């Protein structure tokens, strides 16, 4: 694990990268990393996240700036700009049921090829997917979803990279931390090693590659 600056962390992300970004309607989104992506004018990004927040917040800023080529999310209804770009065909949007999206991400991080879920059976979601019957019940095979980078927001980190999340800002963060090839963490507080009780650690340190140092 390396501590680094916002600038240097984001400089590692090339145009066209596939990013997982934590947050639910902007809550738990690493806002500093998002702003730095905009400042460095990254283009052609694929963003995998629960939603695209609203214009002016979190992933909404990336959508508005035209930095995103494709969004993979469960819900975009509260961001009219995402809907507009999708219907106009200027940005690809792939919609996935929320429980399936998080499990596909979890599968990637946990070394699974995919998961079997009943969600989506008998709907348009099943189109083009393999259906399996287990004990008489139909399931869809949903494959693992990987990313080049996971951009994680934590409440507390120590200098080894152990992470704690707060309240509903946890959401996708600990799951994407397992699934990104490179994991970049922006924490609200950084504390000395040993300050976080082992029982409270939600993401173990060896998972984290870069921690943004507070300046």
């Amino acid at each position, binding site marked *: 694990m390396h501590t680094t600056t916002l600038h240097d962390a984001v400089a590692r992300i090339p145009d066209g990268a596939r990013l997982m970004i934590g947050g*639910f*309607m*902007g*809550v*738990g989104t690493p806002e500093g990393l998002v702003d730095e992506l905009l400042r460095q004018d990254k283009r052609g990004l694929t963003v995998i996240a*629960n*939603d695209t*927040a*609203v214009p002016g917040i979190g992933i909404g800023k990336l959508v508005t700036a035209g930095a995103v080529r494709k969004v993979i*999310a*469960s*819900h*975009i*209804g*509260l961001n009219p700009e995402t*809907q507009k770009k*999708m*219907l106009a065909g200027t940005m690809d*949007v792939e*919609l996935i*049921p*929320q*429980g*399936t999206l*998080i*499990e596909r991400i*979890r599968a990637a991080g946990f070394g699974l090829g995919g998961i079997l*879920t*009943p*969600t*989506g*059976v*008998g*709907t*348009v*979601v099943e189109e083009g997917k393999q259906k399996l019957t287990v004990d008489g019940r139909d399931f869809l095979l949903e494959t693992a979803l990987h990313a080049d980078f996971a951009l994680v927001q934590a*409440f507390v980190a120590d200098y080894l990279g152990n992470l704690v*999340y*707060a*309240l*509903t*800002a*946890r*959401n*996708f*963060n*600990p*799951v994407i931390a397992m699934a990104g090839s490179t994991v970049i963490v922006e924490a609200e507080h950084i504390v000395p090693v040993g300050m976080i009780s082992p029982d409270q650690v*939600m993401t173990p340190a060896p998972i984290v590659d870069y921690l943004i140092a507070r300046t």
Partner: protein
Amino acid sequence: MDAQVLIAKRIARELRDGMLVNLGIGIPTLVSNYVAPDVRIFFQSENGLIGTGPIPAEGLAQARLTDAAGRPVTAIPGACTFDSAMSFGLIRGGHVDVTVLGALQVDAQGKLANWMIPGKMVPGMGGAMDLVTGAKRVVIAMQHTAKGKSKIVKRCDLPLTSARSVDLVVTELAVIAFENGRATLVETAPGVSVQQVREATEAELLVRGDVPTMQL
């Protein structure tokens, strides 16, 4: 009585002490306002909270404590938080007793469409498909008609949310159940006749004997 309040009050009577309940956005959110004081419900927010409390007083919002629409909420004593995989494990895994959701259409077999109007409104399904697939009981809170057209249709022409049928639909006119896959009129709203409900409903309704009036 306001239509939305009537719907919310009636649905609140479906909830029992100790249940884990997930409320969707819109009319469903109102249901929590009408639960009897001696009934303790565990309300889940799909973004990772059980024990969702009322909207915080002005100035007391906590930026990291929000509901599924991203609005500030409170957490009651005894609340717990978790990540999205746990949240949807609870939902898909059959641990949620009741989910209350809005709808665009419900058909004569109880099939639900509530997540998109192709080419027009594509908000995404969010957690709706998992909730309808996994919750023990699915209750729909909706106005009976939209722009004068029945929302209870013979067959949904909008994309379905799940292959599973919903259990109960509550509107400002009626309560409709789907026992054995057939829309059955089980209650009418105060001052509304069976005939009025039938006239406002595209789907054929099964009526058995006298239909009681909604208790609120």
